């Protein structure tokens, strides 16, 4: 009898240790699971099914008119596809009730006062649970201020300026799930200085506002850190929605630059590239946003060959390594042919790239809400701070508790002609786009080399929490 008791206690102790050891491991297993996806065969972005009533409400605060109107549609497509998935699963159990996810368009017209007004209307009138934004850091700043004032969760999925989460602007209600300008800059510098080690003459050409200066600053800091031998042969900031890039491009040419580093987004990004190629300027653009397929197709295979894109979603080498990845890809791509305006352009063909990044960030958001079991902002904050989550490609996202920025691996994608795209696109038809260059070779930049900057002052401010 005595011997058996001894054995039993050993078993109990072993079991306890095993359980203790297991539980944190299980906690880290929060991830996107393609096998749980709902039936997506009826995903129709041009005729979206949007539930109303007692729902989980996400407001996309973005441009739905004016020069950047196309951006709002891209956001909507991305977020709505995720909402559709969760709704087909039967919704999310929050506060004791299964609720569907409702996506609401909120047009800020790219104007600060309207961004404030529409965000407030979303919070006070529509009673949304999440403000999801946006194109323009100056506009995201306003959204975050509204979120802070009315204690509503905000997600910065597309505004990438680090300054939004410094000590002065930080709000504990807002989470930066996107890549940040310092990450982009450091990532590019790391790639050129530590991986590629070839070109040495760089020209910075960015848009003349908070974001443009921020992303340029990130690159300059990155060069200091990872590529001290590099030479900055020029640095210019052009006005937003510029018509004629030729004068800048003539300067770039004269400066003998080997690479142009730009944070420009559409339509500037497109006009920059198109005009550069028209002027016979064939050098590579190291970019964040020159990845919109219709633009690339306009410039053609030759003009887009050699572009260097940095992104927050992707993979090292082949894009499809698991069945789950293919299932997730096809859930979107199979439905694409039946969509109508404005979702019938090649922007929407693959659901990867920028759209893929927005989709994944939204999956993370809804997964956090599901695990919080509530739309109560305090409960969401509790789960999300220091949360780790794995996206469809196995990339781990970590929400830094102190400043709500996300640490993750980044990816460099080299654009190559269609026949070489199979290096990335390893399933039928073995190219991403047949009439422009696109991702071929791709490299992972490890998360610890490209951590976003943190404002040290936040440490003092957030001591209590």
């Amino acid at each position, binding site marked *: 009898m005595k011997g058996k008791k001894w054995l039993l206690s050993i078993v109990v102790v072993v079991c306890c240790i095993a359980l203790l050891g297991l539980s944190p491991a299980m906690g880290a297993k929060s991830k996107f699971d393609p096998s749980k996806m709902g039936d997506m065969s009826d995903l129709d972005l041009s005729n979206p099914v949007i539930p109303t009533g007692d729902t989980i409400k996400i407001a996309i605060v973005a441009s739905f008119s004016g020069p950047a*109107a196309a951006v709002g549609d891209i956001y909507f497509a991305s977020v709505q596809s995720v909402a559709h998935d969760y709704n087909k699963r039967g919704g999310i159990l929050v506060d004791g009730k299964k609720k569907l996810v409702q996506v609401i368009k909120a047009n800020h017209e790219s104007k600060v006062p309207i961004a404030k007004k529409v965000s407030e209307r979303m919070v006070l009138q529509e009673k949304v649970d999440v403000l999801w934004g946006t194109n323009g850091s100056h506009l995201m700043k306003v959204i975050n201020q509204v979120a802070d004032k009315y204690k509503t969760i905000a997600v910065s999925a597309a505004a990438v300026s680090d300054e939004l989460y410094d000590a002065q602007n930080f709000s504990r209600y807002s989470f930066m799930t996107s890549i940040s300008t310092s990450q982009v800059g450091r990532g590019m510098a790391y790639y050129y200085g530590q991986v590629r080690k070839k070109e040495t003459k760089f020209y910075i050409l960015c848009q003349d506002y908070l974001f443009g200066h921020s992303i340029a600053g990130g690159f300059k800091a990155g060069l200091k850190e990872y590529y001290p031998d590099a030479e900055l042969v020029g640095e210019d900031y*052009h006005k937003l929605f510029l018509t004629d890039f*030729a*004068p*800048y491009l003539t300067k770039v040419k004269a400066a003998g630059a080997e690479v142009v580093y730009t944070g420009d987004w559409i339509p500037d990004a497109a006009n920059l590239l198109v005009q550069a190629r028209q002027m016979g300027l064939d050098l590579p653009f190291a970019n964040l946003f020159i990845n919109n397929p219709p633009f690339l197709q306009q410039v053609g295979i030759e003009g887009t060959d050699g572009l260097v894109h940095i992104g927050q979603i992707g993979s090292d080498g082949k894009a499809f390594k698991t069945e789950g990845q293919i299932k997730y890809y096809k859930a979107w791509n199979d439905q694409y042919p039946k969509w109508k305006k404005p979702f019938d352009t090649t922007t929407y063909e693959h659901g990867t790239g920028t759209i893929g990044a927005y989709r994944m960030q939204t999956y993370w958001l809804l997964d956090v809400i599901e695990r919080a079991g509530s739309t109560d902002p305090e409960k969401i904050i509790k789960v999300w701070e220091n949360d780790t989550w794995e996206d469809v490609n196995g990339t781990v996202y970590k929400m830094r508790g102190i400043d709500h920025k996300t640490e993750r691996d980044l990816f460099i994608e080299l654009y190559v002609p269609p026949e070489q795209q199979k290096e990335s696109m390893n399933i039928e038809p073995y190219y991403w786009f047949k009439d422009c260059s696109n991702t071929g070779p791709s490299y992972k930049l490890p998360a610890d080399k490209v951590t976003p900057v943190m404002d040290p002052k936040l440490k003092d401010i957030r001591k209590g929490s």
Partner: protein
Amino acid sequence: MDPVTAMYVAQGMHGLAYGMILFLLASGLTLIFGMMGILNLAHATFFMLSAYLCYQVIAWTGSFWLALLIAPIVTGIIGVLLERFLLRKVHAFGHIGELILTVGVSLVILESVKVFWGTESLPVQIPNVLQGLVTAGGLDYPIYRLFIIGLSLVILIVLMLILYKTRLGMVVRAAVSDADMVDALGINVPLVFMLVFGVGTWMAGVAGVAIAPILTVFPGLADQVGMDAFIVVVVGGFGSLGGALLVAIICGLLNSYGVQFVSQLAPVLMYIFMAIVLVFKPMGLFGERE
């Protein structure tokens, strides 16, 4: 030519090319204002519409040249219809009525464009013969931009010939200074208005087609260039074609040489220029009317 000189020459040509586009757009705006006292806020929208029509004609026929012919004409016809059936009706309500009407028309066009073509940028290719660069004396310059300069010069010359060598041109010039008096001399001024409106929108249409391959076609096209054209009209003096030409080229050159020499100031250089001129000449460089 040494590389530095080549760079300066290239900047001058960039300025000229953009300046000529601005002139095409501003000349219609300033002529319409001079004659009819109407500030046509839909003018830049016609410019954008023509770029879309250009895209569509190319999509149907594959020919840029056909697009260059058809798109501005269709735009001009829409301009004529706007003048004949809408503007003339609200004339009795004064300039505020006309202003509001043109704003309304621009909104309708903008929304229709989105319905027909969506919000994404559409590609327009440079025709094959105009692709590539010319090399002369150490300077590489895109053929298409030379084509824009040439095309605008031809239109400018034809416009000047009509204005200064024909009776119609004489009537238009007289009507710019005193439309009622021209009418009282037995000339059908409403018909002349309609014609000028048509030609003005046609020129905006030509500018729209010319710029489409450089800029990509998207709904914000009107905002970008429209503002610059408006500055040209204000600084040149409302109603002054010569003023529009001079200021358009000055603005183009300010733009390119500004980027070259004071790039931090480049985004605001045109506004500074406008402010300086208006301080000394509130009616613009060649403006006479208030």
